[in-house]
């Protein structure tokens, strides 16, 4: 993929220190800014790092910080990391630079399930279930994401072999089908449902709670735990499936694990935050330009950069139009796309895709 001899790369320790610094900086800025405006000295007190004079203001600051801002930061960081890492895995497995987590069908499945919940849920959910409606949407989206991936996997797998080409094309077909269904739902929905639907599709971390953080945590830990195993297998896979097989990689098992890991992680992410585009494409490519194609550095590096970038985008999303919120998908695409293009053009020779 990349002409290794012609470039000098920064040492890995420097890259990782910078990424950690970036994530720390993004978290710090995210903690400090917000629509509720907490001045710095009171912020320190609310975090338990100092003393404050005004007890009433302190109580309010603590509540804003601990029940709104911090869970949102935790959720944003985890989801950003998962999306970026999932992007790396998808590009590795599919051996295609354009692959992104949406390819395994998770986004389509989740979107259809969410649209169904928003539009049809209103009509068919009886009064008894209404009190849990807030929780139904993420659960339905997650179920939809998994269902779509399983269907796609079944389609692409025959005689114990998963065809990446069928997976790719099947994913496109399923996305088209799902889009038709969503179009139909859009057609029958009213203003309020349409608004909910559109905003859901563009993604947002609004409504983040510690409960959601805890719900996403196992998936985050799961994909993190699989990093070493996936990195080992994905490196030889760059050469091709047959080549990797002869190098001792259990290719089918690797594909299965990777797809499952991505589906679970992205499914969890999409179900709580809606569809957040571009993180899964921009971050891995950005990092590939810096650390090269080796997955041992690429996977954890992308996770760190994805978390930092998502936090920064969310900080913009929740403050730029305050008190309203920009959908984060708008921010990631608006910043990510031009930035990515500039890098691509400047390093045209590096990315011989």
């Amino acid at each position, binding site marked *: 993929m990349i002409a290794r001899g012609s470039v000098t790369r920064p040492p890995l320790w420097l890259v990782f220190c910078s990424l950690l610094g970036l994530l720390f900086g993004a978290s710090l800025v995210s903690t400090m800014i*917000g*629509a*509720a*405006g907490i001045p710095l000295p009171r912020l320190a007190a609310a975090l338990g790092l100092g003393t404050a004079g005004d007890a009433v203001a302190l109580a309010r600051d603590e509540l804003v910080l601990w029940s709104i801002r911090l869970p949102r930061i935790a959720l944003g960081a985890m989801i950003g990391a998962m999306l970026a890492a999932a992007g790396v895995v998808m590009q590795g497995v599919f051996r295609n630079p354009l692959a992104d987590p949406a390819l395994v069908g998770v986004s389509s499945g989740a979107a259809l399930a*969410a649209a169904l919940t928003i539009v049809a849920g209103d009509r068919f959910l009886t009064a008894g279930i209404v009190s849990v409606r*807030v929780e139904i949407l993420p659960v339905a989206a997650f179920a939809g994401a998994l269902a779509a991936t399983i269907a796609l996997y079944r389609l692409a797998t025959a005689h114990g072999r998963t065809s990446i080409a069928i997976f790719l094309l099947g994913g496109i077909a399923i996305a088209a089908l799902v889009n038709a269904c969503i179009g139909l739902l859009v057609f029958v929905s009213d203003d309020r449902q349409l608004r909910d639907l559109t905003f859901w599709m563009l993604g947002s971390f609004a409504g983040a709670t510690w409960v959601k953080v805890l719900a996403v945590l196992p998936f985050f830990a799961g994909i993190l735990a699989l990093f070493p195993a996936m990195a080992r297998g994905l490196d030889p896979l760059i050469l091709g499936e047959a080549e990797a097989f002869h190098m001792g990689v259990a290719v089918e098992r690797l594909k299965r694990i990777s797809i499952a890991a991505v589906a679970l992680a992205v499914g969890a992410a999409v179900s709580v935050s809606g569809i957040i585009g571009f993180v899964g494409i921009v971050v891995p490519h950005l990092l590939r330009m810096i650390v090269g194609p080796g997955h041992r550095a690429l996977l954890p590096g992308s996770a760190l950069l994805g978390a930092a970038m998502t936090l920064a985008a969310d900080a913009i999303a929740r403050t730029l139009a*305050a*008190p*309203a*919120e920009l959908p984060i998908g708008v921010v990631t695409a608006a910043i990510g796309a031009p930035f990515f293009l500039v890098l691509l053009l400047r390093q045209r020779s590096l990315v011989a895709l």
Partner: protein
Amino acid sequence: MSSLAKPLICAAAFALALASAPARSADVTVRDAAGRSVSIRDASRIVSIGGAVTEILYALGLDDRIVAVDATSLFPPQALRTKANVGYLRQLSPEGVLGLAPSLVLAAEGAGPKEAIAVLETASVPYVRVPDRFTGEGIVEKVRLIAVATGAMERGDCLAARIAADLAALETLRARIRAPVKVMFVLSLAGGRAMIAGRNTAADGIIRLAGAQNAISEFEGYKLVNEEAIAAASPDVVLAMERDGLKLGADEVLAGPGFNLTPAAARKAFISMEGQYLLGFGPRTARAARDLVHALDPDIAGRLPSETDARACAG
């Protein structure tokens, strides 16, 4: 030369015919919400688009002239049961509307899509845009326009006077409010994300009519609002609507991130009212505002003049 003259003469004759046509046939001419002059010859077959338009036509006793309503015409309930349905207000199909052979289309300003409205406006059937202003005067304005367009001037004057009397009575109730409370209207809470009403919405209008203050005034329309901004806006009361018997639960809303830090959550102040009644801006709006005033402060209560006889102006 003669080959050019012939079509020119034809065109001139056609233009002359076009120009003289409306003047010859018009009985009533109204200026609609878009500032267009619309000539109406016959108001015997009306397609009514918009909840308030249908409500007003029923209040004027013109329901037998309605051939079809749209899906937002939820009141009175028999409207959608007995009349043809042309679909959702913003998803109209020109053919669906014109296929009913109406002699007049009365449509709320918000009707759409734009292309469909453009087709309807250029069709030979008069199309009147009824203004959507979310104030008391706005309702009277709607009634007057509809009355003129349908030729029901006397009934229209009657209904307009009753609504004005209701609004005057409402104003005396409002005068008793000691301190205006901050109200936040929650349109929806999908996946824990709150869609809140800003300026220039029906919700903002009814909150003002009830002598309260909209907790969010920084933006127009309905938008996704940041949880911190919800906490910072510190509403005293959260208002929501119910539709088809479906409503947001008080606990569900007030326990959500952001809401749990507001005075509304501390006081458990959550009000839910029927959607078309609360946001319709039709003949019943003064009553809805009165109910809201009462819900905000139980000490303030009173009857409105129109409550004695709902169809007094129906002829």
